[in-house]
């Protein structure tokens, strides 16, 4: 089965990205460093789905720790010819009704845009992070791929809600729907982000705006000039947190261990040299640097302050609107060149996705573009997308 790192059941309808744990199935987050690691429990979101009678079809391939563009850098998969995400493709091809994935640095949203399926990264704290292979704790969130907004809402209703095993999980009741009235709602297009995309994506944004108008939604372009700063900030926080969270993979306790070491330092160095790919190593170096004593105040410390500024500025912008429209990617397909320069390309592409990770607001990819909204405004995003999806039928 081409989508799966580990195939579990013919009766399955839900694919689970290898960034989440499923009891007994290898959980490696696409990395050699976790080779052979089988968790003793499943992620809370997986447990909730199974409790409702859903069956997991398998663990889909994911790029190492979700740090790449769409999932191209998995230790367990041949590099795909056409660069697409496995979970997104499984849903697009109808092999799975829906899929779960951790959105940490936008890979899931980019994959959804390219495969033409929906993906919701909900408000931070909505879905339990218990049982995910955590990298960037302050901005990662479990999200849902489905064919349409209604399909996303259906799965969200099962997995969302407080979990005492996760201290960041919010004590809140949720009810998701994609069919609320949208006529009269207002959507702004973020100019600075739209301009960063190629002609094909620009045309998609324009077409989406037209479809919105047919749903009775007002659309206008606005300026939001701190997108680049927001991206840089999230890359600082994300690399620091990831560097810290993957430091536990050292060959001592579980997963991959290199052979031929003479002492503990060699065990660490050889294992991590052989176990991580170049992208993770770049993130580790970058993350160690921004946390180091001499850089902390200028990088990580400042990043925490900028996060507040971005949150305030976005709240100010979105006050007058119901949602913001923007690209999820700069183009509709990635090429070999993008991959050869992965660290730089991911950094550039993340400008579309980082704001939602940085400040915890919901973002929905649908029809190849992205809607972003106020905290807990998932239903606004889902209903707007739902209306556009119906218009297109």
């Amino acid at each position: 089965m081409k989508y799966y790192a580990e195939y579990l059941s013919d009766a399955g309808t839900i694919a689970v990205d290898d960034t989440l744990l499923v009891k007994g199935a290898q959980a490696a987050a696409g990395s050699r460093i976790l080779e052979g690691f089988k968790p003793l429990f499943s992620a809370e979101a997986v447990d909730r789905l199974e409790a409702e009678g859903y069956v997991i079809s398998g663990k889909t391939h994911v790029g190492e720790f979700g740090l790449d563009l769409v999932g191209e850098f998995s230790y367990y998969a041949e590099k795909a010819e056409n660069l697409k995400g496995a979970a997104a493709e499984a849903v697009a091809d109808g092999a799975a009704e829906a899929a779960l994935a951790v959105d940490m640095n936008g890979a899931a949203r980019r994959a959804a845009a390219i495969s033409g399926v929906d993906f919701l990264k909900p408000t931070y704290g909505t879905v339990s992070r218990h049982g995910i292979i955590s990298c960037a704790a302050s901005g990662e969130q479990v999200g849902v791929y489905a064919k349409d907004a209604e399909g996303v809402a259906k799965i969200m209703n099962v997995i969302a809600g407080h979990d005492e095993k996760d201290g960041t999980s919010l004590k809140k009741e949720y009810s998701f729907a994609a069919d609320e009235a949208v006529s009269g709602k207002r959507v702004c297009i973020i100019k600075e982000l739209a301009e960063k995309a190629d002609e094909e994506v620009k045309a998609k944004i324009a077409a989406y705006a037209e479809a919105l108008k047919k749903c009775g939604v007002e659309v206008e372009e606005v300026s939001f000039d701190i997108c680049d700063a927001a991206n840089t900030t999230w890359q600082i926080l994300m690399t620091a947190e990831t560097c810290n969270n993957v430091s536990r993979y050292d060959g001592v306790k579980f997963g991959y261990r290199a052979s031929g070491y003479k002492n503990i330092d060699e065990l660490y160095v050889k294992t991590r040299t052989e176990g991580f790919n170049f992208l993770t190593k770049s993130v580790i170096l970058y993350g160690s640097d921004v946390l180091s004593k001499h850089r902390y105040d200028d990088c990580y410390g400042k990043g925490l302050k900028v996060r507040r500024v971005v949150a305030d500025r976005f709240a100010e912008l979105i006050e007058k609107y119901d949602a913001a429209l923007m690209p999820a990617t700069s183009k509709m397909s990635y090429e070999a060149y993008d991959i050869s320069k992965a660290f730089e390309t991911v950094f550039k592409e993340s400008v579309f996705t980082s704001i939602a990770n940085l400040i915890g607001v919901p973002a929905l990819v649908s029809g190849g573009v992205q809607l972003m909204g106020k905290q807990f405004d998932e239903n606004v995003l889902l209903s707007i997308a739902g209306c556009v999806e119906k218009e297109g039928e």
Partner: protein
Amino acid sequence: MKYELVIGLETHVELNTESKIFCSCGGHSASQEPNDCVCPACSGMPGMLPVMNKHVVELAATAGLLLNCEISRYTTFDKKNYYYPDLPCAYQITQLNHPICTNGLVKLKTSEGERDIRIKQIHMEEDAGKLVHVGKASYVDFNRTSVPLIEIVTQPDFRSAEEVVVYLNKLKTMFRAGGISDCELGTMRCDVNISVRPEGSEEYGVRSEIKNMTSFESIERAIRYEAQRHMDAIEFETEVLVQETRRFDDVTGKTYAMRNKETEADYRYFPDANLMPIIIDDEWFEEIKANMPAAIDEKADEYRAAGISENEIEMIIDNHNVSTLLDAVVEMGCDPKSAVGWILTECAGVLRKNGKLIKDLDISAEKMAAIIKMVDSGDINRMNGRKTLTAVLEEDVDPAAYVKENGFDKKVDTATIEAIMDKVLAENTQALEDFRNGKVKAKQALFGACMRELKGIGDPAVIREMLDKKLG
């Protein structure tokens, strides 16, 4: 030249909690075998997130209150990064920016008079595991990982080794009395910062930090050795002092510099996003204050006033479970002196028989009070009270039901006792004769036989008196 010592202490104390700080594994005293108190969370497996144990916050705040600290109502956790096999996540969760307690003060009585030691801060953190080396192989034991600790950091206010030991003893007594920590060997560890300067000087000398000492005796020896080394270096230029971290060797009695690699690490501290800031609201704060043990001195005065001896007071205060139990049974109307006897003598006796210590005593105040009251009111005799207590401690029976079942509460009149006594004397002619011939021991045998016949019912003192009368 006369020199002055300047010493600051960092003391790590393991907290007495049921479970670890961020998972539900048993606390420090729960483990028996290596790695038998370990779960996916405290062994660093992916997927588990830390969940704060509220009791840790309460004990840390209580420690702060005992040391006259300000308690932060907003407190946060940070991650400290370093690689070592006994640290499963390769980071330790600790508090850097918003520790739970700050600005405290401890008053010490030393041979030089009264001294004030300022407490800079107290913070909460998790312990690391340990490595076990067998031959060429090394093994990790994660039982201790994530066991809750508090670290108490003083200002450099100590001027002698004696003061340090007085301070540590005071912490130990306070924390044991408050149920905060056992403060036993291994659950209390100290880092000592020490420098020497000419008396009267305002400037600090070059500082050494002596790490990770567990016994008060080592701490005292290490300070004396290190002070002499510094004074020699200044006075006779025996060596050039550098700021460094050292360890104390118990065998040689000397301190040695540790490798720089271990000491000049950049720990890359940063806030832990998995743990939301802890807010201690007014309601919770009042609750913590209400459950706070009385200051030891007040408590001791209270016991003294009730006629309890100094030795007993020390034992009571040293054992949090004993003082809580005693306070509770006295509250229920038991006589304090009688209650102390029951707890420190009778309970301790039963525990000893079972290879346990008074700190292991675990009996509900209701049951203890019931037994004391039955004996004190004369409903049952002391011997049967003791039997009841044994049954309660060993099988957790209900005391009143047990007394009834065994007929301990039956009353016997003098005539019945008299009749039984006559029967016993008639049946034990040999013992009687021995007694008449001056064998005092024989009387005890006769008394025992009477008690057996009476099946343990009746007041032994009355019976002994009646027997004496009968034997003339």
